[in-house]
């Protein structure tokens, strides 16, 4: 299970490094996809959740709590 441990640490490091450039949505989706794969979540669940969860969190923190989450590559469609 050392692989899973490595996946979590690697995922977090990667997140911190690329979130500024890629933005919240892209990074979070990649992050969830990586961990869901490592933990063996079925693919169709993974595809749905990796997209929906960042949207919910973004709504909570960006719209609700006004945290300036970075947009990164999606700067053009920022709201």
């Amino acid at each position, binding site marked *: *299970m*050392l692989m*899973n*441990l490595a*996946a*979590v*640490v690697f*995922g*977090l*490091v990667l*997140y*911190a490094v690329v*979130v*500024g450039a890629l933005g*919240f949505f892209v990074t*979070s989706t990649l*992050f*969830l996809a990586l*961990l*869901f794969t*490592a*933990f*063996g*979540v079925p693919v169709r*669940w993974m595809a749905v*959740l990796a997209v929906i*969860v*960042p949207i919910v*969190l973004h709504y*909570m*923190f960006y719209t609700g*709590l*006004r*945290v*300036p*989450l970075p947009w990164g590559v999606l700067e053009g469609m920022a709201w």
Partner: protein
Amino acid sequence: VTDFVAAIWLVLDPYVLGVVLASACFGLFVGSIPGLSATMAVALLVPVTFFMPPLPAVATMVTATAMAIFAGDVPGALLRIPGTPASAAYCDEAHAMTRKGQVEMVLGAGLVFSVIGGLFGTIVLMTAAPLLADAALAFSSFEYFWLVLLGLTCAVFISPGRPVKGLVSLCLGLLFSTIGFENPAAYPRFTFGSTALMSGLQLIPVMIGMFAVSEVLRFAASADKPLEPVVQQIGRVFKGQGALLRRYPMATLRGSVLGTLVGALPGAGADIAAWMSYGLSKRFSKTPEKFGTGHPEGIVEAGAANNAALAGAWIPALVFGIPGDSITAIVIGVLYLKGLNPGPTIFIENTVTIYAVFLVFLLANLLLIPLGWGLIKIAKNVLHVPRNVLMPVILLFAVVGAFAINNSVFDVGVMLAFGLLGYVMEANGFPIAPTILGLVLGGMLEQHFVTSMIKSDGQMMAFVERPVAGVLGAVTTFIWLTPLAMRLMTRLRGGVRGGAA
């Protein structure tokens, strides 16, 4: 009395009530999932409460913890896996009762005696804290220096396992607390030229790392087995609870008192209270041989103890700013952020808010009756939530939370570093609570020491000249010397025996 009425109106605000209800559901969910603890619930709530007014912010934490500690009993009974560490003490006993077909009885007892313990602890908090605060108004930096030192001492010696490991853990926390330039001389220490470290480690990313990320790491490192609850149908849970209370009134009282006391001691919280209570219950029981075979007595006592400990931990936290457990260590950070600086004057300057917090405590424990009943009814479904989906989502939430406090990616790194540290420490039997206490109290300890030294013009004797300071100093010294003295005694005795042979 007018303050009290004002406090009631504060609590009856629909926004506050809504927040209480939402955090109650959150607490029940987190508590009932094995691997997610009550402390983790609070750590995850901090980023959200960051943007709330003081009362609802504190109310979320009070409610979520009260709910989570009870909810931890549910998977203990159904799966033989404690939902939170506070239920670990009587998990085998609870599961044994379930196997005997008494699942309603054990879950009902967990619920009813959690509420009783929680209410008892709250009432002690409401009466003891203001009295203690009155006495503490006369305290100077000398008394505070010893109080903090005594708190740190308790954290080392009460922690499970060997005191040496607790001491290492404490020193680690004290070391981390020195980072930055916020010390009496304003000299930057251990910053390694990093501007992000100049203002010291941010408490909240550290807490999220230590209590949320480390749990996810532990989950990742262990082989994941899907959870399979054994029971299909759960009937009437409140049936027979009155009889249980009439049969074990002493156990209920003992558990509540011990829980409150252990909670109030720094560094020991609900989990240690439950272990001590369960042990005590077995020792005082008329039928100790029944323990472990599915006997409700220990569950009654320890179930009351772990909920009583929650409120007990708030006593030193509010009066002295010294956290009674890991949860209040986080709460103190939030109190400072909200301008509710803990200390004896909090009862004078923020009377209404503090009364309102007490009322939330009462409300949360009463709300536990219907909501806890609801959780028991749907427990089977809750326990089916796949943890391999849940854990990555929690991790993402933790990342966003750590980021949100200062909008800084550096804090995400801090979170990861302390997550790894927490995981490695737990895996090797080092308690985490002393590190957290050292980190929270290190600055305070240094400040009171330096202030005292300046006031006394460098005279060390001034630390023991005032009566209260003298007593606190003597107690602290005594606790540190006892293990050494005991070791010396056994060695001397061994030496004599060796000489005789």
